[in-house]
């Protein structure tokens, strides 16, 4: 995986007898291939490679610093850039009601992730309410209801209602009306959609305006390739994407596409999905992730 190929690249850099133009070019070829195989956006691969080349061959470098370690440090910085920088701000606070809205492409893992988030915050003591506004997919509410029942979380849905906005309004009313039963956190699931489905993208915008979430989370499939960036951008331009969750990283995918899309959309990655069960959610820390990648 990306970790292994970057690890072997780091070793190669450290074993270089000297850091000249040819060895740098060889290193950059290998780096580009590793990033491309991991689905990092093609333009980004070329940009990273050019940046490293420029900085590594810069004559003004303090000759006291070991050139090899300097290259490794540049590589580390460029990768952090791809991931979009520091950790996600905590927008979910106890004490007042928070609302999270999940959006993303068909099949990316939204409904499953709603269950995981409900489980995560329930363990932290939040009272949770989940709303299903997916009016398209047959059995969408059954899927969400079964998952929520397995962790005893309240859920709301209207399987025969065709208007997602109506369901959102009624769902919010349902979870805000009862005093002592007041939910600290409401999580809203939506139907899958992609950037070419203009009406659905508009519906998503309207949903966000009605729900007024503290955080809109974009769920991205870890297997996404070169289209990741364009799709993430479309979502980020239509709603206020506050953070990103990348799913299916327990599989064979290296996640480079999703990771670079996250970075490009400007939203930090908050969690990653590492399996189908409700516990298979991990918090994401860019520097820790890169640190692990670079050994």
């Amino acid at each position: 995986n990306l970790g292994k190929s970057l690890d072997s690249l780091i070793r190669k850099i450290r074993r270089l007898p000297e850091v000249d133009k040819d060895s740098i070019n060889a290193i950059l070829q290998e780096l580009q291939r590793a990033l491309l195989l991991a689905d990092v956006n093609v333009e980004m691969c070329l940009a990273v490679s050019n940046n490293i080349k420029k900085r590594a061959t810069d004559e003004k470098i303090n000759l006291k610093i070991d050139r090899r370690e300097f290259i490794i440090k540049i590589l580390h910085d460029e990768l952090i850039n791809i991931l979009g920088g520091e950790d996600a701000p905590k927008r979910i606070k106890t004490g007042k009601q928070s609302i999270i809205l999940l959006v993303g492409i068909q099949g990316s893992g939204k409904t499953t992730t709603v269950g995981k988030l409900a489980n995560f915050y329930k363990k932290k003591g939040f009272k949770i309410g989940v709303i299903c506004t997916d009016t398209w997919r047959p059995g969408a509410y059954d899927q969400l209801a079964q998952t929520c029942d397995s962790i005893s979380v309240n859920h709301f849905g209207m399987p025969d209602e065709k208007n997602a906005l109506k369901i959102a309004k009624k769902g919010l009313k349902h979870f805000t009306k009862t005093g002592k039963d007041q939910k600290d956190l409401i999580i809203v699931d939506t139907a899958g959609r992609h950037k070419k489905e203009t009406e659905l993208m508009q519906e998503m915008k309207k949903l966000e305006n009605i729900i007024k979430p503290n955080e809109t989370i974009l769920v991205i499939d870890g297997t996404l390739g070169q289209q990741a960036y364009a799709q993430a951008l479309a979502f980020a331009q239509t709603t206020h994407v506050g953070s990103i969750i990348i799913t299916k990283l327990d599989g064979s995918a290296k996640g480079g596409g999703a990771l670079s899309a996250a970075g490009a959309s400007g939203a930090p990655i908050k969690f990653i999905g590492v399996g189908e069960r409700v516990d298979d959610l991990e918090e994401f820390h860019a520097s820790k992730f890169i640190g692990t990648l670079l050994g």
Partner: protein
Amino acid sequence: TTLTEKNTNKILKDLELTLLKNDVAVHVAEKIVEITQKNLEGTQVGAFSKKNTLQNAIKEAIFEILNVENQFNLIETIKNRPNKNKPYSIMVLGVNGTGKTTTIAKIVHLFKKNNISVVVAASDTFRAGAIEQLSKHMDALNTRLIKQSYNADPASVAYDAIDHAFAKKINSVIIDTSGRQVTNKNLLEELKKIKRVNQPDLSIFIGDSLAGNDVLVQAEVFNNAIQIDASIITKLDADSKGGAALSIAYITKKPIIYIGVGQGYDDLLPFDPKWFVDILIG
């Protein structure tokens, strides 16, 4: 203008970049460039000056990868099967969320339009809402669904469905399986068991056209486990460039038979290699 070796190399480099940007896996993109170069060997310098020579060399390379000579028509195959007393069984497989269940609904709709009777097996007995999702599709399509309960043995549900089809003289059986990651050895064993117990006539791999290099890994592992007979790529309506078709065809050496272009029952089109190559490299 005349094509020289120098600008041919530039064109091949651009070709590789175009393929990569269109989600063709790295190894497959390199292979296509390699085959194109081989196709150009021995070309007269004079012939080289025709722009079509290079275009054709590229198209030939892509057709080679797509196994166009193995293309077949599923409807004809079922209608012309040698033993009409035995239902034609199809096992559908792939990683999580690629569109297997929805594609099965589309295939049922297609079969009905072509007077092929069909029964479906609910062999995803794991995921929340899987049986309800399939059940609602089959109600809408007026088609019998054979199901047991959650956590039932997927191979046994498929077995029941084939048994039922045999008894009722139904032409075909489609087996829905749960999404699975190729890194999960247990789930690969489960898939092998479904195949071993039921011996389906066709195993179809469903790949998400939005996936990048991973689709090559998926197809390879599944192919090694159960031998893929044909593939379908989905979500081409999402502005995906479809390079996944090349990656899958390359590793399985089997044809892409349909493409999914939306969530409706009619959103399933036969895969046309010529149309596809034109879209891929203009």
